[in-house]
């Protein structure tokens, strides 16, 4: 491939109430097959997508939260969560499921994919992206 672009997927919606979260995840997984430089940002109600312990059997919907754990296998390991959005919702990193990947440059050591960043840091990440897809 001649040129690798930096893709950023911006997730701002809670899961289940709308289709945005699931659609974003599907697009990310499809896009991951094209060997681009992919990063995900979770802010505003998007941080709810990553919460632990989701159990949808009583509402008759597919629980797609375990699928986020597959992202590491697709070399999607830059997952940014905005601190301010967690704070506003009374959440901390402990409330989110752990997402990891195996670093092939470091003897396949298991590392955390999630990085909590400030709004200012996230703004910089957005600025440095070539393509931003919003959900």
């Amino acid at each position, binding site marked *: 491939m001649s040129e690798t672009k930096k893709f950023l997927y911006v997730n701002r*919606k809670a*899961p*289940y*109430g709308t289709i945005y979260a699931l659609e974003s995840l599907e697009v990310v997984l499809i896009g991951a097959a094209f060997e681009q430089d992919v990063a995900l940002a979770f802010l505003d*109600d998007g941080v709810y997508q990553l919460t632990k312990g989701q159990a*949808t*059997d*009583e509402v008759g*919907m597919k629980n797609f939260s375990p699928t986020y754990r597959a992202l590491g296998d697709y070399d999607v390991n830059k997952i940014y969560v905005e601190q301010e959005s967690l704070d506003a919702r*009374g959440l901390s990193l402990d409330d989110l499921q752990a997402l990891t990947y195996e670093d092939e440059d470091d003897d396949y050591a298991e590392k955390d994919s999630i990085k909590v960043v400030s709004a200012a840091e996230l703004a910089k990440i957005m600025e440095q992206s070539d393509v931003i897809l919003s959900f």
Partner: protein
Amino acid sequence: MSQLHTVNKSPLDRNALESAIRHATKGNAVLMIEDGVYGAMKGTQKSAMVSDAMGDISFYVMGPDLKARGIDEGRIIDGVKVVDYSGFVTLVAEHGITQSWL
């Protein structure tokens, strides 16, 4: 006649819960469903809005929607009652009018 207000939007994304509370009168009930259940959580920027209104309004939240979103009942604001689908039906039957805040 006593009203039941249902709210299905996150209070951190839309103002449906805020409007429902503002228009609910003494003795009314507010039921948080779907993404509205985030409004029942402790420790958010919007939690005080619910606690402050609790004297005049009764608050309910849909248990299955909490579970879907991974919200433990221990994270719910004190005084908000968790109901299931049959509880939802009972609330509708007990109130003369149901108004949906979308």
